[in-house]
């Protein structure tokens, strides 16, 4: 009897081991603390909330330009377009607001979320397309224009609200967070850069004419009007551009890797205000 009990215990322990190992690989709370300390120690004079302003928090000259640009923000047209789209009913009479808590107003800070049903990370962009499809509409392209306008409006309604991302007590959620972290720190492309090469190791430094933004709060300004694009772009568009810039083949918009890295970075930005839609050089 005792032998059977020991065998059963050993089997349970063996089965639990991979799960425990996976959990041991990531400790979001400790990593959040370390990530925050890294940036605040590196830029001790910078106000914490200012990190969300990306390169403008790093460079005085750029900051002055940004202040001047923001007198007539180039993303304003996207907010107006997004607002009109948001209020326009689908063919079945329902609206985007019917798909979100609080009718979609002031909820951007809660995305991405882990969806227990699908076992995947759902970004705001994916939630919007799910809403469209659930109401008989075609999904939008994940990189620009219509999707950028909708997310610009939703971000605007959340301005100043602190990022509030949760990792539920579900090993799949922790796995998604860990995959996002892995993507962030993995070098790729012929130039052998990771996201962290620029945004952890070199914020404030230049790559050609660009001032690199800190990773802390980097998602809070999304979507962005980027002068280099001459228009608006979503998080997926920005990630795809990063991939191309290091000579890596970009992934499809809102691919699992992009959603997971957004989940990881947004969790790291918890407590920092939403500043989107933003402008970037």
């Amino acid at each position, binding site marked *: 009897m005792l032998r059977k009990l020991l065998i059963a215990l050993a089997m349970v322990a063996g089965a639990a081991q991979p799960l425990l190992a996976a959990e041991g690989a990531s400790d979001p709370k400790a990593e959040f603390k370390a990530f925050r300390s*890294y940036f605040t120690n590196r830029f001790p004079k910078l106000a914490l909330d200012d990190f969300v302003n990306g390169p403008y928090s790093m460079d005085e000259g750029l900051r002055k330009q940004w202040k001047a640009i923001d007198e007539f923000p180039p993303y304003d047209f996207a907010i107006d377009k997004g607002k009109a789209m948001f209020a326009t009913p689908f063919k079945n009479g329902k609206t985007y607001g019917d798909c979100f808590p609080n009718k979609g107003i002031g909820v951007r800070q809660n995305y991405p979320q882990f969806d227990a049903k699908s076992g995947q990370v759902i970004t705001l962009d994916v939630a919007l397309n799910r809403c469209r499809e659930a109401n008989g509409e075609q999904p939008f392209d994940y990189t620009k224009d219509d999707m950028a306008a909708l997310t610009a409006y939703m971000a605007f309604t959340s301005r100043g609200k602190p990022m509030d991302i949760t990792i539920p007590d579900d090993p799949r959620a922790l796995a998604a967070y860990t995959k996002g972290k*892995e993507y962030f*720190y993995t*070098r*790729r492309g*012929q130039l052998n850069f990771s996201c962290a090469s620029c945004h952890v190791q070199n914020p404030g430094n230049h790559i050609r004419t660009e001032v690199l933004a800190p990773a802390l709060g980097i998602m809070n300004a999304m979507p962005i009007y980027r002068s280099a694009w001459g228009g608006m772009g979503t998080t997926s568009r920005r990630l795809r551009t990063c991939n*191309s810039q290091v000579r*890596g*083949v970009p992934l499809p918009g809102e691919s699992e890797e992009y959603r997971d890295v957004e989940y990881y970075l947004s969790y790291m930005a918890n407590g920092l205000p939403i500043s989107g839609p933003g402008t970037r050089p």
Partner: protein
Amino acid sequence: MRTRTLIRLAVLASVAGFATAAFAASADDYKAAAAKADAAIKQAHALKNEWTTTGAAMKAAKAAADAGKFDEAVKHAQEAEALANGSIAQAKEQEKLWPDAVVR
């Protein structure tokens, strides 16, 4: 004297041989080089770690082959294979190395 002549002949022969190998690639040579490059590209794609330069080299190889410039086509296909192999090696190396970069 005889040795010097032999050396000269050997040098001439090797140069001629090199020239033949370098400048007389055939359509079959291109097909073989392209097949090897495609196999490596497929592997890099499966690892979700392709480089943009690999695709550019393959495109150049196909264009050269279409123009009947098989020596050039082989050169570009070999370049594409080398780049794809570089991206495969990077992906495998990074599987082990990325945790070292995590902020702690």
